[in-house]
């Protein structure tokens, strides 16, 4: 079963093509992360899937339906956290979650959803008194109150402090364990690494890497060893760190010298991401 299927998706704004025929799929029950630098086309892609923007070409299915053709009942089965969007400033957290619950045929309990996103103590606060991170959690509550099968999260933790980010990750893991499918965009590689079952890396409107974080890492050398010799930086990429380190340190000991600034660093998703998107930043 697939929650989302995208094949040959193209989109232009005027003469500028921002999506050059991308393809990917999100399986039912998985967390799928779309990564890429600013301007890579992440939000455009997500907003086409959410039904906000029209595509120019390609085949797109969300829960089996074409998001370009309005079918109101499909909206009862998806939850959306937009990158930025206001809520009614003068209502309380409880009121607004209740109002949104009223839009859905079989909503979750508003009180429960407010607890779930960690706003229990702010339940009676007016929206305009919430902090940035709390507003973002309210966004999440509004996306979840309809009890969706598929949740779109466009940079859900931007602006969070580390503790709030951990809490949001817990919430997303909880959703996954409930069998929800989740499409996430993020700038934070750690977030993608910890949450995503699979990721796709988008660069200038093309997908330049896709797979599980482990698969993406496997295509690249495993460990990076750095040290300074005669003031010059030496970098060794290796998949056999034990042997290389043994040789290096053995040699240094025999010569009675110190390997200055020795660092051993397992390659992370961020390293792979930076490598794959490097051209775009230059």
């Amino acid at each position, binding site marked *: 079963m697939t929650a989302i299927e995208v094949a040959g998706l193209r989109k232009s704004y005027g003469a500028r093509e921002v999506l050059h025929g991308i393809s990917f799929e999100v399986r039912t029950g998985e967390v799928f992360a779309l990564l890429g630098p*600013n301007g890579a086309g992440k939000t455009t892609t997500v907003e086409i899937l959410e039904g906000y923007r029209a595509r120019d070409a390609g085949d797109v299915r969300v829960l089996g339906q074409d998001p370009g053709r309005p079918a109101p009942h499909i909206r009862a089965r998806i939850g959306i956290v937009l990158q930025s969007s206001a809520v009614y400033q003068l*209502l309380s957290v409880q009121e607004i979650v209740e109002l949104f619950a009223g839009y859905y045929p079989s909503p979750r309990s508003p009180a429960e959803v407010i607890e779930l996103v960690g706003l229990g103590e702010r339940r009676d606060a007016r929206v305009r008194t919430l902090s940035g991170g709390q507003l973002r959690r309210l966004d999440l509550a509004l996306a979840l109150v309809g009890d969706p099968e598929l949740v779109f999260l466009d940079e859900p933790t931007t602006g969070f402090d580390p503790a709030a980010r951990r809490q949001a990750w817990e919430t997303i893991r909880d959703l996954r364990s409930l069998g929800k499918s989740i499409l996430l965009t993020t700038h934070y590689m750690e977030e993608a690494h910890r949450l995503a079952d699979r990721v796709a890396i988008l660069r200038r409107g093309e997908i330049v890497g896709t797979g599980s974080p482990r698969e993406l890492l496997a295509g690249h050398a495993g460990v990076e060893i750095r040290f300074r010799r005669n003031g010059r930086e030496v970098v060794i990429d290796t998949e056999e760190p034990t042997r290389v380190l043994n040789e290096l340190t053995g040699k240094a000991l025999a010569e009675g010298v110190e390997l200055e600034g020795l660092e051993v660093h397992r390659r992370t998703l961020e390293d792979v991401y930076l490598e794959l998107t490097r051209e775009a930043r230059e």
Partner: protein
Amino acid sequence: MRLFLHELRVQQVLFWRNREAAFFSFLFPIILLLVLGSVYSEPIEGVQASTYLLVGLIGYGIAATAFAGLAITLVVRRETGLLKRVRGTPLGPGTYLGAVIGSEVIVIALQVVAQLLVGRLLFDADWPRAPGSFAFAVALGAAALAALGIAVTALVRSAEGSSAVVNAIYLPMAFISGAFFSTQEMPAFLEAISEILPLTHLLDVIRSTFVAGEGLGASTGDIAGVAVWGLLGLVVAVRMFRWAPREGITSG
């Protein structure tokens, strides 16, 4: 239908919770009535001054609340991304706009009752002579001007510019339509414009039912005029209404 009623309730909560906006759009026509009612005393066009003013200010109030107030509110909701969020729920666009219009009719009904009471108690104005027909005229006018208020948001690009654009439309309309004074001595070209405007037709229906006590049959032409404007607004609203803010399309 369930969603329509739900959204109607949402719209009512939002209108009354925003005390500033509720104050200005709801009480302003009543304050004008208090001020102008104290100024005029001679009969106007053969009608007791307070009754004449009351009729004009009821029309003005409908334009101020259902057209101007609504248009500005909707532009702000659009530009802050609120409408985009609502669009992501199962609530259909037609249901949303229908509930917005219905909510304005409720607000206008209360506003008109308040105006009638102030006019009666403080200035000894008449009650409407044909109350049923008068109520119909008010409801039709509120719905038509709300539809036009939704349509006009397509002309407005930013929240900052919304009150400038909207005021530039509805204030001259109120003057030219004769909401504040008799239009009998207006230059011919203004009179020609006046004859087209929706508020002129609406004021004519309200006058005919309120002052002369005539049934709706006596002003079918004006009722048609208001309805045509309302339908025009609806068509433009459905075709041109934008749900998302104008944003940099370059963003990720």
